[in-house]
């Protein structure tokens, strides 16, 4: 156990799996110099330029090549730099990677991990800031992970590389330097399918359930801290993965608190918060003592100027106010 940054935890996860399995292959733009955010620093020297493949700026080819390589026996880790750029490779991910196993009647699986750094990062504007996790959760065949902590990033990335499904792996750009204790000593078998659809209770409480993932977990914790000072103890659930998602953990918490707030950085319309709220309302309506609440971005693009950009941020103050309103 030791403190690592979220970035370094991801890097260590890749090193661990590449060391264990020769078929793991990284491909993406600028990997030779360590990746845009340093997530691959030193890996080319360690594993060679064949296995740490610096690609041309060809997102469709990167993703498509990963699909072909996965069907031919490799286990690619695809780097998309920004989740926004992955939109240049939607056919390759949605029509090909997600469907190949099914369309071909199970003749081939497509084991690949697509790293799509997501979310707001000061003044990056509309094409470098989006949170599009709900799109991928909608697509049969895909697994969607959104780690919030350094430990999540280590455990979920190793697990994503290991499973035989295509995983959309969405790290948050604002979290790269966040530090946290990371236990790298778990037995090998603990990295795998059981890590998905398993939420963590980031903070226990009985007044209200706050469900979040990715960077918004930290905002929710900040809100919970200020509420605690008022004697209101909210429970914060870090969902970790969106498909599959831990319905039981959310339902169990709501059974205790009777209140549900879901918060995410993505636009609210068609966002994954709607799926969570709808599921709890359909299956556990009797547990809700108040109407569920979504605290999400308005349906406007993300701006450059800080004051405009802040219009799409859901702040800790807004979350705290949302919880107070359910008292």
């Amino acid at each position, binding site marked *: 156990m030791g403190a690592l940054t979220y970035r370094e935890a991801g890097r260590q996860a890749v090193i661990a799996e590449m060391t264990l399995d020769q078929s793991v292959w990284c491909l993406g733009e600028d990997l030779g110099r360590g990746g845009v955010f340093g997530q691959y620093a030193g890996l080319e020297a360690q594993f060679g330029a064949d296995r740490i493949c610096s690609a041309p700026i*060809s997102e469709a080819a990167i993703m498509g090549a990963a699909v072909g390589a996965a069907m031919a026996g490799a286990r690619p880790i695809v780097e998309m730099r920004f989740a926004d750029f992955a939109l240049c490779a939607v056919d390759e991910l949605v029509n090909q990677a997600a469907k190949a*196993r099914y*369309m071909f009647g199970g003749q081939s699986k497509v084991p690949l991990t697509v790293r799509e750094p997501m979310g707001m990062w000061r003044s990056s504007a509309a094409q470098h800031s989006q949170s599009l996790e709900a799109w991928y959760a909608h697509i*049969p065949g895909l697994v969607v992970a959104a780690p919030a902590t350094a430990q999540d990033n280590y455990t979920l990335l190793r697990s994503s590389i290991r499973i035989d499904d295509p995983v959309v792996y969405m790290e948050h750009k604002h979290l790269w330097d966040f530090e946290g204790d990371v236990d790298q000593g778990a037995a090998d078998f603990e990295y795998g399918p059981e890590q998905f659809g398993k939420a963590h209770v980031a903070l226990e409480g009985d007044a209200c359930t706050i469900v979040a993932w990715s960077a918004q977990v930290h905002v929710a914790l900040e809100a919970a801290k200020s509420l605690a000072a008022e004697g209101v103890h909210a429970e914060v659930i870090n969902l970790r993965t969106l498909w*599959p998602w831990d319905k039981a953990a959310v339902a169990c918490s709501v059974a205790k608190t009777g209140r549900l707030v879901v918060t995410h950085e993505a636009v609210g319309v068609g966002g994954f918060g709607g799926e969570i709220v709808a599921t709890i309302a359909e299956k556990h309506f009797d547990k809700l003592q108040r109407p569920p609440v979504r605290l999400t971005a308005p349906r406007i693009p993300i701006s450059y100027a800080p004051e405009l950009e802040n219009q799409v941020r859901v702040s800790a103050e807004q979350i705290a106010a949302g919880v107070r309103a359910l008292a």
Partner: protein
Amino acid sequence: MNQGNLDTTRLIERRRLMLRIRAFEEAAIRAADQKLVLGAIHPSVGQEAVAAGVCAPLRKDDLLLSTHRGHGHTLAKGADARAMMRELFGREGGNCGGKGGSMHIADFDVGMLGANGVVGANINIAAGAAHAIKLRGGDQITVCIFGDGAVNRGPFLEGLNWAAAFKLPVLFVCEDNGYASTTKSSVVTGGGDLAARAEALGVPTASVDGNDVMAVEETAHRLGEAIRAGGGPRFLHARTYRLLGHTSVDPAKYRPEGEADGKWDDDPIQRATELLTGAGIPEADLAADATAAETEMQAAFDEAAAADWPAVRTAYDDVQDVGAIAAPQGL
């Protein structure tokens, strides 16, 4: 047996394969007309020489990526016609369990990694399969067949550049039938010769009469051996003609009056027949090969028509390992 420069033994074999492809397509069209094949099918009638010349000489462990018009390629790579016909019919025992149909036909056991419903999408996938081969080592090659419509899609640029940059073992084959769906390709394509695009991306090219099965085979084999020897990707431009419409229900009335009539004289099977007749092969033998192909495919048709539908619960199988939903109770 060699007659002059003609290897008649090989031509007889390739003609048999072309006859099987033709008979398969004709059986599939009959089945579509009878509403036994429900989804769209894209017959390759007239284009059989490309499938037979490119795919038949490949090794079983070579990989092949094909298109929505992929029945011929798949048969030529060695797939079982009966399983393919069942797949078109959507029946149990189809290559893909009835989940893919004509446009997603695949047979991984013979290295056929799938037809594709998206034009040009197979190009990047083929580059990646070749990349995996290169990383692993060995002398397998990957063959990627696409049409003239695909050269106007982005993956053509990205995938050929990728293969050239990483010197990958892949043969790109443009099976140029003159039509991008229902639009004449020349009307919507800039520049001159399609092969020039590949040359510009650093992929050496060759062009061939795509209705001359022996020429296709010789050229594809020569390119394939250069690739196998570590020479990086190659591009083969094979000019042919789609004798029928885009799909089995397309009468292709958009073609200029009389255009197709003249092309039937250039039918690759007819050309092979004439060559063999000229070389002294008895017409009765050649007719017997045609009958054998039709008999085989009619049997595949009959077997598919009599086959069961897939169990409904299989709709829930093979979606994913993690996060798969359960089939409803009772299925």
